[in-house]
């Protein structure tokens, strides 16, 4: 049975009618995970428990009492969310072998609705990075590296050598989750987004990546990078599915004091036909240095699409955009330095063998447990937090943050409903090229289009738009008003329908499991 369709529209019905069972779904996904192991998208595969969950779901469907749309749906979770009984590593030596005693709230919510937890996905260590290349379990490979679309456009080399050398990154830091969704090994995945870590890999892997408004979804159990910017992210194959996931996760959590108190009502997305009342803002500062001409053209084409359909499209200005990277780095490293202070080897996680003194044990544990990226950020952060530097850096950055947030307030106040911007500067880079620059440089470059939304706490979504000349996905980003996810996703859904982004044609996968995947009719955007 073809299950490429949306959760609400097709999968749920298929399960209810018994055309497919949760166990079958789970087994298919587990088999696919095995056959796509070279992608390195998963750190831990929870085979036994997921099959058990699938069986329990099946019982419920047999009784005609499924818990909801997510009952029996295989889901993957980024390995920085706590999962009780299943290893949570954050792709770090510091937490290798760490088995948390509790579930993150979002994980618990998924399980309570019958979702099947397939496993934990790979990431940059402690979510620091924009390539998913800097974790201790190795880099994640973008499934599109193995797609017919990419291979057709690649410079021909000898078959196997070409593949090995030219595979492209997923982007990061939620690369494993994006790859997992993109390669059909799960129906949806949780990521996290602090500066773009859900939207960036979503763009590179051709999937939908939603960053919700800060305070809408609980962070309890998400191992923090920057507490004041982190949000759980949602990765799916279509916008409707993102709305389903959002509906099951959003809402006040007493365990997270930064979640809003207001009631949240899950929603179904309307099929927008008339966009004439819509006002789309195009922030000129997002024409950033390094933006590829390809993406610039795509962005422009998208703006025209809205205009031709009757929407109001206006150029707007977010004047403080150019300060956001520097501001982000000060605030991010400061919070990182603070959040990482708990990793001392005493209560949990890696502990060094050094026993001469507590201090030496701490120092060795942290040197052994953290990679260079993490340690670099801790050192920077501590520098900014020193008494003599605090005003100059941290407080200053907070003030700049306020200005950046105000830029958005002004623009939305002027009547703009949604902003349209690129998500990334270019399509995914080959791994060998990406690692030529260090993590900090890469992050500084790649975060520029995404992290202002985190500074302002706004919702934002990547919608896969078209394939680049190299046959790789390119996405565009919509940024919405605070807590106006319904409007944001409605617009995103309309756009998704217009562009008809092509389905990935994974040839290895096709060979093993030809029944599952259909070819998509072309009608592609580019």
């Amino acid at each position, binding site marked *: 049975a073809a299950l490429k369709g949306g959760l609400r529209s097709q999968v749920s019905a298929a399960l209810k009618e018994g055309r497919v069972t949760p166990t079958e779904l789970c087994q298919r996904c587990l088999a696919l995970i095995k056959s796509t192991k070279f992608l390195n998208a998963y750190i831990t595969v929870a085979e036994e428990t997921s099959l058990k969950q699938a069986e329990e779901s099946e019982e419920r469907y047999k009784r005609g009492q499924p818990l909801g749309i997510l009952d029996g749906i295989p889901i993957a979770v980024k390995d920085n*969310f*706590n999962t009780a009984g299943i290893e*949570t590593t*954050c792709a770090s030596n510091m*937490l290798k072998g760490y088995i*948390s*005693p*509790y579930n*993150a709230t979002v994980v618990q919510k998924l399980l309570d609705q019958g979702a099947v937890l397939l496993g934990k996905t790979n990431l940059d260590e402690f979510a620091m990075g924009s390539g998913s290349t800097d974790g201790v379990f190795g880099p994640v490979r973008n499934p599109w590296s193995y797609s017919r679309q990419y291979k057709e456009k690649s410079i021909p080399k000898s078959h196997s050598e070409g593949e090995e050398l030219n595979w492209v990154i997923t982007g990061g830091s939620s690369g494993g989750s994006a790859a997992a969704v993109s390669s059909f090994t799960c129906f949806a995945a949780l990521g996290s987004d602090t500066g773009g870590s859900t939207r960036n890999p979503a763009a590179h892997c051709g999937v939908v990546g939603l960053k919700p408004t800060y305070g809408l979804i609980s*962070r*309890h*159990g*998400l*191992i*923090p990078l*920057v*507490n*004041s910017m982190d949000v759980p992210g949602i990765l799916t194959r279509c916008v409707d599915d993102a709305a389903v996931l959002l509906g099951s996760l959003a809402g006040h959590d*007493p*365990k*997270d*004091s*930064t979640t809003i*108190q207001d009631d949240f009502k899950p929603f179904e997305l309307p099929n927008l036909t008339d966009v004439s009342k819509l006002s789309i803002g195009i922030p000129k500062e997002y024409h950033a240095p390094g933006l590829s001409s390809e993406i610039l053209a795509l962005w422009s084409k998208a703006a025209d699409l809205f205009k031709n359909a009757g929407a109001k499209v206006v150029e707007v200005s977010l004047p403080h955009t150019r300060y956001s990277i520097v501001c982000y780095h000060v605030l991010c490293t*400061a*919070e990182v*330095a*603070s959040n*990482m*202070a*708990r*990793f*001392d080897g*005493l*209560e*949990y996680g890696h502990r060094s063998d050094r*026993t001469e003194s*507590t*201090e030496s044990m*701490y120092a060795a544990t942290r040197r052994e447990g953290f990679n260079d990226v993490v340690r670099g950020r801790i050192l920077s952060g*501590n520098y900014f*937090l*020193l*008494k003599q530097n*605090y005003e100059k850096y*941290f407080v200053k950055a907070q003030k700049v943050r306020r200005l950046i947030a105000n830029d958005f307030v002004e623009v939305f106040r002027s009547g703009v409903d949604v902003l349209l911007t690129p998500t990334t500067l270019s399509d995914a880079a080959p791994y060998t090229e990406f690692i030529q620059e260090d993590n900090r440089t890469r992050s500084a470059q790649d975060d520029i289009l995404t992290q202002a939304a985190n500074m302002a706490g706004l919702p934002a979504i990547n919608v896969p738009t078209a394939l680049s000349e190299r046959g790789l996905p390119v996405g565009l980003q919509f940024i919405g008003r605070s807590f106006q996810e319904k409007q944001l996703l409605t617009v995103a859904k309309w756009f998704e329908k217009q562009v008809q982004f092509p389905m990935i044609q994974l040839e290895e996968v096709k060979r093993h499991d030809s029944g599952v995947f259909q070819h998509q009719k072309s009608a592609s955007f580019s």
Partner: protein
Amino acid sequence: LAPWIPVVGLEIHAQISSNSKLFSGSQVQFAAPPNSLVSFFDASLPGTLPVLNRRCVEAAVMTGLALNCSINKKSLFDRKHYFYADLPAGYQITQQRVPIAVNGSLSYSLCIDNKMSQMVTKTVRIKQIQLEQDSGKSLHDDTRSQTLVDLNRAGVGLMEVVMEPDMCCGEEAAAAVRELQLILQTLGSSQAVMAEGQLRVDANVSVHHPGEPYGVRTEVKNINSIRFLAKAVDYEIQRQIEELENGGTILNETRAFDSKLGCTVPMRDKEGKQDYRFMPEPNLPPLILYDAKSLPANMNHQQVINIDWIHERLPDLPSVKREKLVEQYGILPEHSFTLLNEDGLAEFFESVTKQTQMKPKKVIGWILNDLLSYLKQHSLTVKESPVSSFLLADLLNLLEKKEISSTAAKQVLAELWKGEGKTPLEIVKEQKLELLQDQKELEQICQAVIDGQENE
């Protein structure tokens, strides 16, 4: 030699009396088995978040009001970073920028020259009260080169009360802390028992000549009782004076009080000054408190704290209680101090006065001289007294009705202490202590004595 002016300020940490900890639901309990009261948050498991305990906020507001502070309607939480085995997260959550209460005062009384009859009232300014987490406990086992860490106490709510350097000696510091202790116990915001670590006092001490700026101060820690507080402060003042008079200098250091030797010693060095890298706590929004005026109409009352509501329900503070005792019973002010100073003694006194015809002014003597001294001799609390208020009242009634003499009464009391269950009347009969009222009988006895004399 020019005179020295000693300057003493205090930092007092009072453990909040609550069922659960400041930011997590684990229990607060003294002397529980090690690491049995530790939640995931207390152990700093990654991904856990703080959730503010309402009761702790109320305790701090009550305390702030009782100490005449302004309650900040908006206060903030911060992280104070340092590495130590008993601080699992590597930082303590405290209130460094804007604490919950500021600018208060505490009045306390002292006896001049040790005479109870001459009491003088002093005031110390309260700089601020802040909410913060307690740390765990670490026990250093040097023989096995290891440190044992117990996190039961980690995360328990504390109120840090900062008293300005308005005090000048050990006696003042002790009296101020004693009064604070009584206030906290009256409010119920802290049980404030120093022996159980519920009240910890650090003293800041310096000396200077009149007209000159304040001297370098030292911080004295490890003070385990109010008595030791007075000793530690006085010793440190003396030490500093001697040091300076011998041409030395005072280091801005932390010293520990050694109760056995009765002196202060430098603590293990902390390698220069610590930079705590304060940072706002991003997981806790600003703490907003309301009063009757600012309370929005449609606010869920479970979610908010109303300062005025708490103010209306404050119990009588010790100073008020003392005034009332003096007014109601006609006792002396210094008597009221002693009554309140002893847990349960005021209640005992009032209970006795209710049950006896003897005037309170006379009862008080029996309470303060006889009862109290006996209890002190045997290290008993009022609750543990073998002589109940009922029994004492009974005895005093016999005295009041002139059925026994005052001397006899003391004898009966001595017997009552044995706690054998006899009533005063029974003891009087047993020991034949009745006062003879019968005229004729008295005449006979006198006559017999006179006759006896004449025969010699």
